[in-house]
């Protein structure tokens, strides 16, 4: 029972992080119709920025209890890359999907080495934060408070995103652009600005996801390419472009991995991809996606 709860908590922690990355992927796909393979690279960059910022701040005597806001900020700093990368991708908006995919793949290759140049290939972690918040005792199970905080942060971000998309003028413009580019443009929407903003927001989400993990697990350069496929799995299961889909998909993937680890570790990722394949075959539009016309 205790093991079950601990696994569940770990699964939800993972799901929270996946949601952030997948939400970025969804935003960009929803509006620009580009599937960004480099979303994992933004995640990895966020992780390393988190390592650096965390190391510096803690070294300078910052209380570990302030690590959460600090890491959120450090991760969000990846957003600085949003506008230039979006400018680059803008060159292929009306090209074939395969070219869009390949251009983002080129970004994956480049970021992988940029990260190596900046931080080397050794695993790096922010020490002394993970357990600084203590653990909660649930029966015999102990769950680090950090995990719960990250979960809460992800839920808060999800809620904030939902409100932003549904209630604000910019959110409405964004959804209108996702619905119909040309119509939005003819109504006077500055689609260029919308694209840049959306992409930047997506980048920030990925970066925050990465930064929140480093107290719990070390950052490694390979994480960039590993995470893409998982984020991919999330959006396929949830439905391309759908925010509720990202939430559901992340929960499914996170819990599935954790559950498989408990029951039959060999099946960990296998189970995820098997679900992806099943969803693509039975409901290609995903659980929350609209079927293509």
């Amino acid at each position, binding site marked *: 029972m205790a093991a079950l709860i601990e696994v569940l908590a770990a699964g939800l922690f993972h799901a929270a992080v996946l949601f952030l990355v997948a939400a970025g992927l969804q935003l960009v796909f929803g509006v620009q119709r580009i*599937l960004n393979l480099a979303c994992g690279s933004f995640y990895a960059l966020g992780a390393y920025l988190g390592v650096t910022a965390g190391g510096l701040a803690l070294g300078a005597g910052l209380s570990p209890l302030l690590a959460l806001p600090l890491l959120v900020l450090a991760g969000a700093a990846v957003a600085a890359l949003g506008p230039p990368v979006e400018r680059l991708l803008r060159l292929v908006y009306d090209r074939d999907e395969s070219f869009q995919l390949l251009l983002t793949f080129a970004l994956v290759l480049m970021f992988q080495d940029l990260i190596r140049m900046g931080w080397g290939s050794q695993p790096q972690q922010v020490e002394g934060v993970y357990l600084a918040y203590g653990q909660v005792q649930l029966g015999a199970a102990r769950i680090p408070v950090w995990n719960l905080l990250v979960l809460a942060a992800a839920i808060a971000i999800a809620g904030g995103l939902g409100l932003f998309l549904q209630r604000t003028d910019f959110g409405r413009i964004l959804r209108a652009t996702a619905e119909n580019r040309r119509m939005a443009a003819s109504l006077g929407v500055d689609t260029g600005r919308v694209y840049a903003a959306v992409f930047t927001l997506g980048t920030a989400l990925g970066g925050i996801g990465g930064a929140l993990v480093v107290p719990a697990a070390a950052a490694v350069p390979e994480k960039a390419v590993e995470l893409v496929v998982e984020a991919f*799995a999330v959006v*396929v299961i949830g439905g391309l472009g759908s925010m509720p889909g990202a939430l559901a998909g992340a929960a499914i993937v996170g819990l599935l991995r954790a559950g498989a680890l408990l029951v039959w570790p060999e*099946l960990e990722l296998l189970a995820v991809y098997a679900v992806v394949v099943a969803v*693509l075959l039975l409901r290609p539009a995903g659980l929350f996606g609209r079927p293509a016309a």
Partner: protein
Amino acid sequence: MRGGALLAALAAVAALAAAPPLLGEYRTTLLLPVFGYGVALLGLNLLFGYGGLVSFGHAMFVAAGAYAAAVVTGVWRIESFEAVLLAAAAAGLALALPVGALCARYTKIFFGMLTLAFGMLFHSFLFKFYGLTGGDQGMRVRRPTLLGLEFEELDKTAFLVGPYYWYCLAVAALLALLMWRIVRSPFGLALRAQRDNPRKAEYLGVEVRRTRFVAFLVSAAFGAVGGAMLAVPTGLADPELAYWTHSGTLVFMTLLGGFAHFAGPLLGALAYVLLQDWLMSLTPYWRLLLGAVLALIVLACPQGLMGLPALLRARLAARRRRAAAPHPAPAE
């Protein structure tokens, strides 16, 4: 034109056959993966260039071929390379039967995602089922015999840059010939027709799904045979062969050569191998440069190296026109 193509092909084969003594051991070793990749990419491009289907899971078949080579030579202790190639093709087909039956229902982004998911499914199988596949250690591929000959007197490098090199050149040439026939057959025409306009193709009697499925099978078999050819020099079949980034690299190589031309994938394999080697000699951060090259091709030269002459010609003509007409000509 046809005669020209034949002549160019013969010249290329002759040049490659004559190369080893001129290039020396190191550079000949460098050329070895070109044949394996060339074959695998011919398969990939049947789907990509001719069928309009971009697979992000082709590496799965390359890996299947490599593991088939490991099982045949290492576990079954059969040393004949001919048996290895047949087993690889069979393994590729066996894997492609279920995968292709499902993937042939989709196109575009969904085809890409589904192939990627299947590729990763296969990767995690290779990675996690330690008892069967050796997990992250992979499986050893032992040195095969060629046409029943053992070449005992040759050490490993001499074997690879000698008989193995020529054998692979011959296999690649024969398979290229086979692929040449396939793309110029009624089937190849149907494949291109469904790429351009599936609805119209159906009304002209093309069984679109069946066509895609058959192309998928052929593509997989080529991928697996290429994988087996690649695994002998490295002596290893490991799960990273099936990783999605390897699939991405395969698409990259094809694009580099030019997916719109029959010889594009072959040229792409050669160019990529040389480019990678050169970049690796320049800097440990060669991926950065490789990524930049890929971005440049996507943006500036989507037809790849094969399309370069036409691109340059067009640029030149445009410049000459501008020079000849200093005043902007009125639009028609």
